[in-house]
């Protein structure tokens, strides 16, 4: 199961391989917890344990990044296989922000 913790200025959310079938309500709950507070400077999202993550997790990560990347630093770690797939289809969640600000 995904686990979440907040320490000092960092909030972290790590998914595990059992989260491949995560339901919408649980996912929403996790990302609500992850919301940055006054002290948060960095949010880390770890998808390394999911080589072929479901799209709802990727969409949620993208949505979270779109909502908060202006205010906090978001560090996402994905499995090399995921990275390869994302690059192949131009699944660039952060390009949207960069293009806007550029």
């Amino acid at each position: 199961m995904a686990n979440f913790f907040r320490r000092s200025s960092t909030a972290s959310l790590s998914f595990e391989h059992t989260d491949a079938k995560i339901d919408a309500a649980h996912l929403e709950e996790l990302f609500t917890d992850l919301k940055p507070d006054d002290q948060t400077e960095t949010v880390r999202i770890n998808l390394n344990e999911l080589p072929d993550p479901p799209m709802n997790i990727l969409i949620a990560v993208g949505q979270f990044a779109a909502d908060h990347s202006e205010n906090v630093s978001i560090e996402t770690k994905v499995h090399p296989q995921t990275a390869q797939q994302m690059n192949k289809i131009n699944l660039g969640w952060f390009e949207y922000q960069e293009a806007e600000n550029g």
Partner: protein
Amino acid sequence: MVDYSKLLNNYISEASDLLDEAEEAVLALENGFEASKVDRLFRAMHTIKGNAGLFDLVRIRELAHAAETVLGYVRNQTITLEMDGIDLILMVVDRLRQMMSDTEKSNEVEIEDLIEKLNALAGETIEKSEDSENGSAGTVSEHGPEGEGTAAVTSSTIRLKISLPSKYVKEAELEGRVLTLILIEPDSIAHMPLTQFSAMVEGLPGQRKAILPVSEKSTRIVIVLSAAEPLDTDSLKSQLPADAMIRVLDKREKEPQQEAQTGATQPDQPKEDAAASPKEATAKTNGKEKKAVQSGSHENHLKVSAELIQSLINLASETVIARNELVQKVQESGDTSLQASTKKINQLVSRLQEEIMRTRLQELDLLFQRVPRLVRDTSHATGKQIELVTEGGDVELDRALIDAISDPVTHLVRNAIDHGIEGPEERKAAGKGPVGRLELSAGLRSGNVILNLSDDGRGLNYDRIREKAIEKGIASTEHAMEMDHKALADLIFLPGFSTSQEVTTTSGRGVGMDVVRSNLKRVGGSAEIVSETGKGTTVTLVIPQTLSILNCLLLRSGDARYGIAQANLKEVLQVTKEDLDHIREHLAYELRGHLLPVVDLQQLLWDKTDDEGQFIAVVATETHRFGLLISEVLNSEEVVIRPLGPEFADVRLFAGAAIMGDGEAVLIMDVASVARHMDLDPASIANEEIAAMNLSDNMTDGYLLFDSAGYRFGVPVGSVPRVEKISRKHIDKFLDLETINYRSQIVPLVSLDKIYDLGNHQRAEDLYMIVFQINGFQVALLADDVFNVEDQFQALDRDTYSGPSVHAQAISNDVKVLLLDIQDLAMNFKKDHSHKLKQKEELEREKEEKQKVESA
């Protein structure tokens, strides 16, 4: 265990701030679309909605959600928020505030009326969006699954304007390509593994540019495909989930049509590149905001309860008292090593206290951001047009003081709009622009926050105030007629003398000007008003920046000790009884060429101790500067001010009391109240200063010497605007008053030979007149001859009385010169002459009546 109530309190506090922000943003939108403001507004509603769910605040969530939906359209620039829409969002803000004020009952509050209006606005949005998209290049035309049951409904209700990064739109435009956008609902691919999704996407035709989230609000994603020709949508649909929507952005064919439409007057029509440009604007603003956020993120902020801070302040106050006691005892002991340690503790306690006081300081923006709404509502209610200018919102003030002045400021703003600023027609008739100007500014001076509220309205009607003062028995007719504008303006601060009832006809609003002053007074501040009829009014509020601890000069007057705030103290002078002058019944001291009004503290406080004042503490407020005659200067100390009890509510001379290190209570003087009590008038100070010029300033500028009836006189050269040579035949005489027609004005002539009874004096044919301007009227001294200006006298005697209106006698070139107090002379002349005229008139009347009786 989660402390639910604490979380809820945090939510309410955060929501309250967000609603304030939202209100400010809505008001800013009245001046036109501003992407950053809409974003703030949208996010405020989004956050309020999101967190309301955690606390089961269903109605708050529903209302915020409905508002968020509308704001989503505004943000996408699908609609422009017109005045009705702005009113509606403000009503939503108000309703949410009401619900936040009592969250327990928030689920019982009716919101259907607002939801209905918001939904209607959202509905209009969809129609408008669809209308505007027909045949419009640069916006996205739809080829979605219309008419396919649920999907079709979804398509029309979630219709969004997709904002693409401008680079894709520009590239497509330059290369003459068509962009195809595929919107995919997340539910349809939720559990689809990335590899499967990847395979689906790879099978799509065209050049794939990107896969992006649609917007921050939505979790939909969009696949952007670029092709030389529009892609076959039927073929695409077969490769995509059933509820996917396909939109085509084709700028090639519809360019001319767009140009034709741009010329048409359709303000709501999305402009060319509307998909990209608003986002660009947002990005620029966001860039700035981001910078601000980033710079702020380095500071760590903690939310601390107000009670805890208050408790710390109380402890700091007690520590200061204990420190003072310790310092006093250590000094008495004479132990030098102890004294050194105490000095360190002394400094540390001072710093500790300063830092703790700083925790309560908040920017005045907290108050200022409520003013635009107030101005808007009041101006709408009164049909007036107001331009509001605020300045100094970054000035910091104790939170308790911000709360304390909130009502007075609200009242003053309403007052200014209700009664001060005229309606557009009246303004035009008065030669002013139709839009009234209201300026609220704040600044920091000598530890006080100076808050000015100025309007360019009709100003106070002094005649009406005078009439009301007589009518209410506040002043006798004679006294009222003598009162100047400053004194009359001050009357409106009296209880029951509110401007709403007395100066204009609009009804009152509960808080009168007396409450404004008393609220200010309660926190150690003051309120003053300056108004010019027809031009406007300025109300100045002076508020101490922090409460409780004050830097004081302790002094002794008679047998008692008193304190004066260091912020009010300018200097201390050692004086003797002889140094003091008496002007009429008042004490004054000549300080560097200016007469300083002096208040004898012993007399003021009815202290009968036989102890002559030896020092003058020169004090100043925003409007007054005067001296306090005191017996002894003790020391400077930080004291904790305690309010005087309700029994002393009518004693206005003191700001409070402080307990000293030795346990004795000391009263702290309220300098502004002393000035008011003594009726010290800034204008009269100015006049005194003019009078003082006679003897002091002009010692440097010199005296103009002249002869009259064989005697030599001197008048301050600085007070002489003009010397004219005249012919005796031009002097007119009527009822014993000599006048001359000078520059189309009748100027009375003062003959010193008559005033000082210098014997029968034969005037020469040619004379001189020395013209003065005294208190608004012109008067001229007649002189036989005018000499040089003298600034160095062989001898100067100020002490020996030499006659009325003679300041001093001096010797210049071995000739005795009488130095005249020209103001006193002119005033006496005016008084005497009026008296003589009256006497003469009465004699004439008696004579006439006698003649009538005799002839009858």
